[in-house]
């Protein structure tokens, strides 16, 4: 069953508001500040690893599917742990950890077809992995050697976007383009709970709904916008925001990779079928700091962390695989070997990543180069070469280490 039909109708129809109101909406005056997970949370795998069903979201997977989902969760977490360590060792300037959000990212990322385009924030390392982006490309950004090292069109994975919420408009415009092309691709826009306060995100909802664009708005509600709790962004559950814009919203257990996969697939299918956008609120928790520069002990309780540890996305999947007999000790050992290999690749590649040539500052500013910038570049080159053992000499040796450029 599609997201729209499960929530009472298609976007744009009068049924949407009525259906949603009938299902989940209290009177405005009683909405208050209930922003926590409630009975409406879609779940297919409990924190204890018990497989449950949901009337609206069937999910038919093979044993191999289940195993590979678990494998992806482990690998993505391993990249994250390794990157955090590399930052602590001075190899990265900063790292934005995804710890705790693996299921939200792998579940939604695995729901995407190759032609589907993802527009990330700066924390979608798991989605990048699902889209085939080498984690080293992500590390390049956090090391400071590039602003983004991948060609977005190679992977249908957009550039990391640091200004909060901007990419939701890009996603919507891209989806409008798909509509004009008449293809059956869809778009997914990632953002967080804090971003829902941004004007751009609200404008994206307006554009997406009035043009009925094939875009899924995937909000990872990790409860924290750096130090600000969800209550500083909203007084209703975030997924209910969609109702006011006239499109369906659904809240899914963001630590349940199966539920996220099923809900995202349904939303993407709905978009492909011409039924417009869906808002997915993946209810999760940022287990780590906002970034390696942050100190969450200043603003949140350790006990919250303990509560959420019990809902860990990897542990529940592992428990299910063991209990169901779909995976044995050899499988888990093999996953660890793969994770070790990926971590080694990330570590070695990061440490060996050369600093760019100083003159590359001038590269790629324009598609059609300008004489003024060429002049500035030439002057800077002359300046650098005026140092016998100066910056240019260093850059030359760095370039030589990297195999020249």
């Amino acid at each position, binding site marked *: 069953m599609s997201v729209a039909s499960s929530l009472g109708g298609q976007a744009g129809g009068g049924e949407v508001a009525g259906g949603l109101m009938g299902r989940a909406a209290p009177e405005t005056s009683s909405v208050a500040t209930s922003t926590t997970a409630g009975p409406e949370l879609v779940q297919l795998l409990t924190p204890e690893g018990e497989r449950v069903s949901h009337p609206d979201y069937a999910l038919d997977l093979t044993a191999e599917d289940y195993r590979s989902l678990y494998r992806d969760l482990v690998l993505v977490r391993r990249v994250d742990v390794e990157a955090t360590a590399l930052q602590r060792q001075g190899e990265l300037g900063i790292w934005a950890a995804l710890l705790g959000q693996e299921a939200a990212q792998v579940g939604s990322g695995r729901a995407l077809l190759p032609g589907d385009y993802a527009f990330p924030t700066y924390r979608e390392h798991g989605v990048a992995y699902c889209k085939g982006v080498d984690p080293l490309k992500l590390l390049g950004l956090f090391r400071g050697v590039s602003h983004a090292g991948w060609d977005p*069109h190679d992977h249908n994975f957009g550039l990391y976007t640091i200004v909060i919420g901007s990419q939701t*408009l890009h996603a919507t415009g891209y989806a409008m*383009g798909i509509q004009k092309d008449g293809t059956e691709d869809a778009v997914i826009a990632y953002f967080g709970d804090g971003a829902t306060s941004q004007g751009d995100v609200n*404008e994206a909802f307006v554009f997406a709904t009035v043009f009925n664009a094939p875009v899924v708005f995937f909000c990872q509600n990790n409860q924290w916008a750096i130090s600000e709790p969800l209550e500083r962004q909203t007084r209703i559950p975030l997924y209910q925001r969609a109702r006011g814009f006239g499109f369906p919203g659904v809240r899914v257990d963001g630590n349940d990779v199966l539920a996220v996969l099923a809900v995202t697939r349904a939303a993407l299918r709905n978009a492909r079928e011409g039924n417009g956008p869906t808002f997915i609120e993946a209810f999760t928790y940022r287990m780590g700091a906002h970034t390696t520069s942050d100190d969450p002990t200043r603003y949140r309780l350790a006990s919250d962390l303990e509560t959420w540890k019990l809902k860990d996305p990897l542990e529940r999947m592992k428990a299910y695989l063991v209990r169901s007999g779909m995976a044995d000790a050899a499988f888990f050992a093999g996953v660890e070997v793969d994770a070790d290999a990926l971590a080694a690749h990330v570590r070695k590649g990061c440490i060996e990543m050369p600093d760019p040539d100083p003159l590359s500052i001038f590269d790629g500013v324009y598609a059609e180069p300008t004489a003024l910038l060429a002049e500035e570049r030439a002057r800077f080159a002359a300046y650098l070469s005026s140092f016998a053992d100066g910056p240019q000499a260093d850059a030359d040796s760095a370039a030589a280490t990297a195999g020249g450029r």
Partner: protein
Amino acid sequence: MAPTTLAKAVNMGLRKAMESDPKVLVMGEDVGKLGGVFRVTDGLQKDFGEARVIDTPLAESGIVGTAIGLALRGYRPVCEIQFDGFVYPAYDQIVSQLAKMHYRSQGTTPLPVTIRIPFGGGIGAVEHHSESPEAYFAHTAGLKVVACSNPVDAYFMIRQAVVADDPVIFFEPKRRYWEKAELDESATPPPLHSATVVRPGDDLTVLAYGPMVRTALEAAAAAAAADEGRSLEVIDLRTLSPLDLVPVLESVRRTGRCVVVHEAPVFLGMGSELAARITEACFYSLEAPVLRVGGFDTPYPPSRLEEAYLPDLDRVLDAVDHAFAF
């Protein structure tokens, strides 16, 4: 060849661009059925359909943000910002996203988006309808910024802007929308990013763009007719980023004097950059400092005061006198 207004010339240029490339889209507030508040997009939706001429929701950041997404999908959007003073809600998308995405992508991702902005005062409008925000955009690497001053340039420059692979901020002098000129569509235009000498002269170089080109030309005619009989060379800059300094420097080296004219406030305006570059390149040729004539360093005043605020023929000639007094 019939005389064509500047507004109509932009319209014809957009039409030509849309005929030449099915990926060209026009989007903005009221650009469809209404044809835009200045009628610049008149008739385009009727001929090209609602899928290509899009009446957008009333949200400028949304217009530019979705245009970026459309460009990533392979389209060439031409956004209309209804008035200069309404561009600021889109400023973040323009400066942080549109201008930087090609650089961010290490040159793999061009964003061929044109943003048309009717700019400048002189039409007796209420607040936010008469501004000259070009310096904000010229200051931002990754954007290209141009301003047309007459119907012929308007026609060719909009076509050139649309086919360019870089984002172009395209300023249209709204108080000149109804001025007419003979337009020969088969003519060969100069490159988009080139300045042109629109009146040759020997004694002083006047630099202007957009609505001030006509003012500069009127000042040059008056200076020639006056007792001193001064011969002013007028250059229409046309491109504000990148600047085309070649004809400018050649001219100033010859005349030894230069006055820059724009409606925008002089503090950190285009004139500041031009004065600095001309001084550096022509130091030994200059008989006087480069002088700037512009709006005052105030917000744009109520329209009953705009005649006093805006540079006119007399204020240009006053600056010319000062340049000769050094």
